[in-house]
């Protein structure tokens, strides 16, 4: 919880500093007609639907007579499907595409073509790694600070020292890799975490069965393992289930990023005592405001520009520290869930 406070403090400082530098936050004028596309990694996942709810809320609030489309590929066709939808959006003359990128840099040519056709590309959740073909990235949290949050949860679960392993999604997920890199960085540089040893990183492809089997393989491979850290909602659930099924919860704990409604039972029975997440509705809401501002020309997308995103307050476009030369808007912070607050959040 201390982490949570410092984060709030840090973001307060950030907002304070930027509003000090910029005289006035731009207030977006509603009612302008612009068609936009919200493009998730693929359809059928709860968090993306929550982002859509947030975007629809902002769409109604801004009185946009245009259309907000929620379209995405089917799960088995994610990469090719995203590129196809991006290409189609450009030819349809959409004002903006809001993309949670699952295609790595393979999306760049189609995104650039869309930009050339006058479509703004606003990424959210997962950015384009090289930053090419992207106007701005709406970051759910500071990617650098995720490492610190995960390290803090590990510290409290392991009680100061022990072995942990990471169970990620796919090896080419840009957000996952950035978070793991930041975790490694924090563990290596901060003496507070010197007792924690990160022994391995494996990939569960965001599928229950692969993640489940990988979690068990980790336990078999490292007899002294104390914690599996899974920064993905599918992985954290599958690992918790695997530990519970094999009666290993006393020996190996699970933590990472998860949805309260899906993690409730594992948090209450002690298999996954602590995990974190941010609000995907807010993320969709903020992303919509950003994309609307840019597509209607009210925002230029320059670094230092500040605007008001409805109920969420003021945000500033800044350089992305993780991807030099690229721009981001930082949402933050996130909530750490324990047995004390998980029940309230799950309902």
């Amino acid at each position, binding site marked *: 919880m201390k982490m949570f406070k410092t984060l709030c403090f840090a973001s307060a400082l950030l907002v304070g500093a930027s509003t000090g530098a910029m005289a006035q936050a731009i207030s977006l004028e509603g009612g302008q007609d612009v068609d936009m596309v919200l493009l998730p990694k*693929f*359809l*059928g*996942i*709860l968090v*993306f*639907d929550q982002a859509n709810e947030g975007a629809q809320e902002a769409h109604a609030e801004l009185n946009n007579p245009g259309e907000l489309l929620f379209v995405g590929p*089917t*799960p*088995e*066709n994610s990469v090719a499907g995203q590129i196809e939808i991006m290409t189609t959006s450009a030819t349809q003359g959409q004002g903006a595409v809001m993309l949670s990128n699952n295609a790595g840099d393979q999306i760049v040519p189609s995104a650039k073509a869309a930009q050339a056709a006058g479509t703004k590309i606003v990424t959210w959740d997962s950015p384009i790694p090289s930053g090419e073909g992207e106007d701005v990235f709406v970051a759910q949290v500071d990617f650098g600070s995720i490492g610190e949050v995960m390290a803090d949860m590990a510290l409290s679960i392991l009680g100061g020292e022990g072995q942990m392993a990471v169970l990620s999604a796919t*090896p080419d997920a840009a957000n996952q890799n950035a978070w793991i890199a930041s975790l490694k960085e924090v563990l290596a540089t901060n003496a507070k975490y010197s007792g924690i040893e990160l022994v391995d*990183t*494996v*990939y569960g492809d*965001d*599928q*229950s*069965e692969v993640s*489940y*089997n*990988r979690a*068990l*393989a*980790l336990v*078999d*491979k490292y*007899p002294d393992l104390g914690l599996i850290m899974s920064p993905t909602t*599918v992985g954290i*659930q*599958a690992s918790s*289930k695997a530990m519970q*099924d*094999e009666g290993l919860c006393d020996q190996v704990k699970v933590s990472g990023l998860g949805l309260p*409604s*899906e993690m*409730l*039972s594992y948090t209450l029975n002690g298999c996954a005592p602590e995990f974190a997440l941010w609000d995907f509705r807010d993320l969709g809401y903020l992303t919509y405001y950003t994309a609307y501002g840019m597509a209607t020309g009210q925002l230029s997308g320059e670094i230092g520009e500040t605007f008001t995103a409805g109920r969420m307050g003021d945000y500033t476009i800044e350089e992305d520290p993780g991807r030099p030369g690229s721009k981001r808007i930082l949402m933050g912070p996130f909530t750490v869930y324990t047995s004390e607050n998980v029940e309230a959040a799950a309902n």
Partner: protein
Amino acid sequence: MGHLFSRISPQTLRILALLVVLLAIIFFFSTQVPNYLNGRLFNRISSSVAIMALIATGQTLVILTRNIDLSIGSIVGFTAFATGSLISQNPDMAAPLLVLYAMVVGAAFGALNGVLVAYVKIPAIIVTLATMALFRSALVEFSNAKSITSSELPLWLVNFPNTVLLKFGQFQLRAGFAAALIVVLLVHFALARFRPARRFYAVGSNPEAAEMAGINAKATVFAAFVFAGALAGLAGFMFLARFGNITVVAGLGFELKSVAAAVLGGVNIFGGSGTVIGAFIGAILVDLIDTSLVRWEFVSEFSREAVLGALILLSVTADAVLMRRLIGLRANREKKLARAAIKEKGKTSEVNTPKQTGETAT
């Protein structure tokens, strides 16, 4: 012994060859991975293979008839979700009814494939490639972006796969694996002994001849797809019970894994020959290699897929060479026996047969 050897069918020989490859792989990894050979390994592989064993069995039925089912993973995913949402809305539903529901839903999907392949005469690879995407999209629609979580499921269902039936030290025979094993054995003996089931082989090895022999080839192909669908539905039920958390990606990629298991298990991809037991061992091989590679320090995450592919190729090659050897050995033995018999005859009628020592030496 020699007598026994020549009486073993080529199918049995193939299963023996596969077992040798399986043991070789286990031996190899036991020299590479610390703490490898123990009851835990058996428990891991047996629990995890229970689902793929059912899918590979269904896939084998289809491949036997010269077809392929690429939609089988999507069927598993859909039935897992549909079964999960049914039981979470009716928590008091009886277990046999739930299993029946899963199999009927799966069989309905299989019937659609079967009609298009057998009666509309569209190639199976095209039909099931399309239905793979269709069934998956149906799941995305049906799920409405919700997931099934294990907390919504009744305890008997979640506990079923891991219930220990028998225990020898660390080795546990769990209910999920036992159920899958029973199904595999039932299908195996039906195919081997039950006359109507022999039609799958007849249609696969020569459709024209089968028609002329009075077998309804269309109905047979249709039946293969329906059975495969029902088995995929059963696998969906097992998937639900084991993982509890079902999202729209459930069963993604199972179609290719099941084809790999069947082919590795000696099922001829051109139809007509192969056994369900073989496909079962093939499924064990794929699972074993996959699990062991994660634990092998030597292989990084990024080269694992490549190593898995190479090992599968190597196993298939080793199996093919071993098979040829065994069949050759047997043919030689038969030749030798025949020659000896001729010699006996020759002695009595006092006619000399020329010696052919060169042949046996090679």
